[in-house]
């Protein structure tokens, strides 16, 4: 019969020893309970859709619920801030958007409380290349038309983004630099407002991404002018790329992937990497992403970390330029 005191002492010792054995023991049992995935954009949007598809696949893989939690606002800053501050135990995944995370960190006015190394990239999911589109009855039939018009009337042709310092905004800056033109830039809050704005005739051109509108471009309701990538999008094979049109420096896309907080134990990261990779390659996941028009491009571990760093460097250049114009 154990004496009460002994029992208490034993549990005390166990509690003290817990951190020492925690990393490997916890990792072997990881995950033991539900995992939260913080998505920094509204439910129903193209970021959220991709997140939910991978969350469902990951649930099957890990055998624990993977719950998507939307924390929206300020172009993602709200959600990223919250994800960065969560406990680095692997149970709060951050669904990060690049270059959104980068530009938030780089804009001093935002006073982001997290830095570029607050996140450890685990695995990328989607690479959604930038797309410039107009209404079907727009006078701009090709990208060249748009550039011509902008050259003739600097600051008059209106273009819109889904947010300040979003990948759309950076793409506009890249075009302005490469083609030596000046647009009138309008910032909306998300894809829906952007669509309402352009289809309603309030703004001339949208700088967006393939995933959100590809079905409507396919159906002819909207016209895609150019894809800002090195190769044609398989969802929009008829739209030329900036590379083809002699603007090889204008390469911009929005990538979404999963990261954890700095300080997460290495074995938990490894478990996540393997598990999520398997989840992403599952046929169900591939099929659903395809139906949603989201290009799958898994980048794992070091490859993703390098992409993260490269994106940060590119974002830095254009962010500073944008800030100078303020």
């Amino acid at each position, binding site marked *: 019969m154990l004496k009460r005191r002994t029992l208490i002492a034993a549990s005390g010792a166990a509690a003290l020893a817990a951190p020492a054995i925690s990393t490997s023991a916890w990792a072997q049992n990881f995950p033991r309970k539900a995992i*939260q995935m913080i998505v920094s954009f509204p439910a129903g949007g193209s970021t959220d859709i991709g997140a939910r598809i991978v969350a469902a696949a990951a649930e099957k893989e890990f055998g624990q*619920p993977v*719950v998507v939690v939307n924390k929206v606002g300020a172009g993602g800053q709200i959600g990223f801030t919250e994800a960065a501050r969560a406990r680095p135990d692997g149970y709060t995944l951050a669904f990060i958007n690049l270059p959104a995370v980068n530009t938030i960190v780089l804009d001093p006015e935002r006073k982001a409380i997290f830095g570029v190394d607050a996140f450890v990239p685990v695995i990328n999911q989607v690479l959604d290349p930038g797309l410039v589109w107009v209404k079907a009855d727009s006078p701009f039939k090709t990208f060249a038309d748009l550039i011509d018009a902008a050259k003739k009337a600097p600051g008059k042709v209106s273009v819109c983004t889904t947010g300040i310092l979003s990948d759309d905004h950076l793409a506009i800056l890249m075009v302005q630099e490469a083609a030596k033109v000046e647009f009138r830039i309008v910032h909306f809050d998300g894809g829906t407002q952007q669509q309402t704005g352009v289809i309603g005739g309030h703004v001339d051109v949208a700088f967006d991404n393939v995933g959100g509108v590809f079905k409507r471009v396919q159906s002819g309701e909207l016209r895609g002018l150019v894809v800002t990538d090195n190769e044609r999008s398989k969802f929009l094979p008829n739209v030329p790329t900036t590379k083809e049109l002699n603007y090889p420096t204008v390469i911009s896309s929005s990538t979404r992937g999963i990261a954890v907080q700095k300080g997460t134990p290495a074995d938990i990261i490894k478990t996540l990497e393997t598990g999520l990779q398997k989840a992403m390659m599952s046929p169900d996941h591939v099929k659903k992403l395809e139906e949603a028009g989201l290009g799958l491009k898994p980048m794992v571990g070091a490859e993703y970390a390098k992409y993260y760093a490269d994106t940060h460097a590119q974002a830095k250049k254009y962010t500073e330029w944008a800030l100078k*114009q*303020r």
Partner: protein
Amino acid sequence: MPSGARQGWLIATGLMLALCLFFLWQSWLLPLTDKLGPGPGFFPFWLSLVGAIFSLLLLIGVLRRSMAEYEAADSQLPDGYGIRRIAAILASLAVATLLMDVLGFQLTMLGFNAILVVLLGERRWPVIAVFAVAGSFGVYYIFTRWLDVLLPPGVLDF
């Protein structure tokens, strides 16, 4: 208590004036306009200015109103009975909110339910006990297991 009401109004409008002036100062520190249009400080600046003017007008109105109008006012300050009950509610809420992250929803609410209900006059222990448990452990179970709503687990994290 007419003078009490008048004091209440004075304090309230005075505080609102102070609040508006504070917002005015803070928005002045923000960029008001820049090349891209109105800046973050633009709207709040003008709003707080208008607000300050309104509160000033109200304050003046309060000072000029006659005593008779206050006596005719509908609401009165609460008496001892009222104050005790209000204090009971607020104190229980504050303590529960303080402890919840540490002790977790279930334990904190168990205490909260039982104590507040007693403070508000209940004495039938069986009913209190059932209510306390249902309103803490029961509610927790329903919300976290069935509805996917996360509540603070505290020390009972399993």
